[in-house]
């Protein structure tokens, strides 16, 4: 890494597990002399140095010498028990397979409702909602800035009326739903809870996940509305509300996925995500919440990228770090707070527009790493997603990929099949140590919000992403079909979203505004404005506004007025 900040920390952590302290056995040294040396003399290796896709060095051979300070009883343990290296459940996928949760959303609510119902009939076990950009940014479909974007990257949801259509004939009491929404998460969640209430589903029993991870928006995905302080307040409001009202609903999915998509390394993804998690914990503790009330509701979301073993090491290290943080750093007493649960999604940025059918293979291998790494839930990308949102044909193959891994490969027959591999254990140690270096660095800056304000994680990611692009340009790293093995192919049939969605949405909004009680809307929004200025939990006022059919844009505008908006310092 070229950044001087990083070089400081690299020397901070001289780990006794590091390769510098490696002492090979007499047998290993003898093998090097008698067997290896003559081979190298005759035919040198393909590269002088081998590295993971993140640039992390990988040695020729891993042996017991790489695990000299590693104690399997302490560092590995047993599944379902601290430090959870081998997984968070004692029987893992023998007991229960992961949730196959395909992210879907496009067009208007009725279009996505149809796709949801199709996926459920095909054996999918959970729902996951993608919202369009206007919804993610808290604008109604008929806002001038929404022009050209309605229903394109996800489903357009502007009010409770749209949400009712989205989940029409889908029993929220039985299905778990994940919603990828961040800045306006509290509002969209209130809409979901209102639909659940209308269906007669018990809030104490409904289950699902709200992404609601604003920190990674500032770091990577950039769909923020308000400044960090009021944004974090909204997150804390949802934590409190979940603890009291929806004890089985995860109010947050602390996400590395987008950090990785923005170009980070695996270690950066791990470190920034877990340090984000610690930031949420610290804000909640400052709010006066009890660690073991909200700890069990925290969930995580990682990228399943292409470097197979590095990814597996990342998931294993993630569980070990989180256990350490929750017990040693925050003094949690409840084991349910210690176990890091995570969703994973195969890497969108690894998909190629060229020779798109190769993406099925990439996705299968990435998904396999997530399964071997002990995932609780998985989304597999579709082959056409470098071009557009997936067609039903492509989405079905993606789901079938998971079913093949689950039912044909046999990898689910035993828990943590790679446990004890010299390479996987050594890499798990190295990835963990690298992540702690970053975590300490961010601690020294005063925490993640402070680090974000200094653009520290943003800069580290931009640096890594540029380095990788240069490696591709110089063919030091190969992407099949892109910078090598190039061939021509016929264009794919892709999903097109036309502008009639925007017109349908505009018409629906016009009708909604004409038919609802404007008085009730005004009163609800005035109460929200008042509450926003104070310190009370905003969920009740947001819920009342949603129930009055105030639109997403109207509700977010009230908070824009009170909280202001965030502009980042653009770095290149």
């Amino acid at each position, binding site marked *: 890494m070229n950044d001087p900040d990083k070089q400081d920390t690299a020397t901070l952590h001289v780990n006794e597990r590091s390769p510098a302290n490696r002492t090979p056995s007499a047998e290993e040294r003898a093998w090097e002399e008698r067997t290896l040396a003559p081979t190298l003399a005759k035919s040198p290796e393909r590269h002088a140095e081998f590295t993971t896709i993140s640039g992390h060095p990988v040695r020729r051979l891993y042996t017991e010498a790489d695990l000299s300070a590693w104690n399997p009883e302490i560092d590995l343990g047993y599944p379902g028990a601290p430090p959870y290296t081998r997984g968070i459940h004692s029987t893992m996928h023998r007991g229960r397979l992961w949730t196959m949760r395909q992210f879907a959303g496009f067009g208007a609510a009725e279009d996505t409702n149809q796709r949801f119902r199709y996926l459920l009939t095909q054996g999918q076990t959970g729902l996951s909602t993608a919202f369009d950009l206007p919804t993610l940014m808290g604008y109604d479909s008929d806002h001038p800035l*929404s022009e*050209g*974007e309605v229903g*394109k990257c996800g489903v357009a949801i502007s009010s409770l009326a749209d949400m009712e259509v989205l989940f029409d004939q889908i029993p929220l009491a039985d299905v778990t739903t994940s919603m990828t929404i961040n800045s306006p998460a509290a509002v969209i969640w209130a809409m979901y809870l209102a639909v659940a209430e209308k269906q007669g589903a018990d809030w104490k029993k409904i289950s699902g996940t709200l992404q609601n991870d604003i920190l990674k928006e500032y770091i990577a995905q950039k769909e923020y509305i308000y400044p960090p302080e009021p944004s974090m307040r909204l997150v804390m409001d949802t934590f409190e509300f979940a603890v009291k009202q929806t004890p089985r609903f995860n109010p947050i999915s602390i996400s590395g996925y987008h950090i990785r998509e923005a170009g980070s390394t695996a270690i950066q993804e791990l470190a920034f995500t877990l340090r984000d998690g610690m930031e949420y914990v610290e804000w909640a503790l400052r709010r006066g919440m009890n660690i073991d009330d909200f700890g069990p509701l925290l969930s995580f979301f990682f990228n399943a990228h292409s470097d197979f073993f590095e990814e597996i090491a990342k998931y294993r290290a993630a569980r070990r770090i989180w256990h350490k943080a929750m017990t040693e750093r925050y003094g949690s007493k409840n084991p349910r707070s210690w176990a890091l649960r995570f969703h994973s999604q195969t890497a969108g*940025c690894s998909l190629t527009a060229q020779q798109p059918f190769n993406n099925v293979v990439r996705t299968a291998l990435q998904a396999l790493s997530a399964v071997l790494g002990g995932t609780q839930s998985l989304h597999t990308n579709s082959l056409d997603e470098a071009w557009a949102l997936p067609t039903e044909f492509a989405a079905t193959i993606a789901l079938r990929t998971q079913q093949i891994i689950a039912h044909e490969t046999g990898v689910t027959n035993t828990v943590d099949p790679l446990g004890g591999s010299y390479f996987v254990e050594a890499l798990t140690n190295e990835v963990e140590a690298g992540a702690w270096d970053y975590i300490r660095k961010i601690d020294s800056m005063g925490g993640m919000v402070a680090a974000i304000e200094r653009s520290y994680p943003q800069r580290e990611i931009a640096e890594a992403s*540029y380095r990788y*692009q240069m490696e591709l340009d110089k063919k030091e790293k190969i992407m099949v079909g892109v910078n090598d093995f190039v061939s021509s192919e016929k264009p794919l049939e892709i999903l097109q979203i036309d502008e009639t969605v925007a017109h349908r949405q505009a018409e629906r909004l016009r009708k909604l505004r004409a038919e609802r009680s404007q008085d009730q809307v005004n009163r609800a929004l005035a109460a929200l404005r008042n509450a926003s200025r104070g310190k009370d939990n905003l969920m009740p006022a947001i819920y009342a506004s949603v129930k009055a059919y105030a639109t997403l844009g109207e509700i977010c505008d009230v908070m824009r007025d009170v909280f202001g908006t965030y502009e980042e310092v653009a770095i*290149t």
Partner: protein
Amino acid sequence: MPEKRIRVLIAKPGLDGHDRGAKVIARALRDAGMEVIYTGLRQTPEMIASAAVQEDVDVIGLSILSGAHNTLCPQLMSLLREKGMDDVTVVVGGIIPGADIPALKQAGIAEIFLPGTSTQAIVDFIQKKRAHHERA
């Protein structure tokens, strides 16, 4: 006389915040000796056209991944014409379905760079295009 440096405005129009590509291209063009101004996120076509005039750029590079290109590109091109910026070279990088490319070129977009394009290919295109322009 030193050669005049090519001035480039890199812009992210629309609501999308995925700026990995825009940032990589900005840096690659700068490393190739161009002067690069990056607008930051969520620029309307009006903001981009005004910035282009104000910064007197030779090239505008738009990064669009959200599917909003058919709306945003023609808007920007007509604003540039209104402002008399007909000679600025506008290129687009991002996820653009093949079926949309002819209409975008018709609207005046000089080139569309799809995912997987090397940064060198973009540098070469811009240098060639502007050299041709200077001679013309």
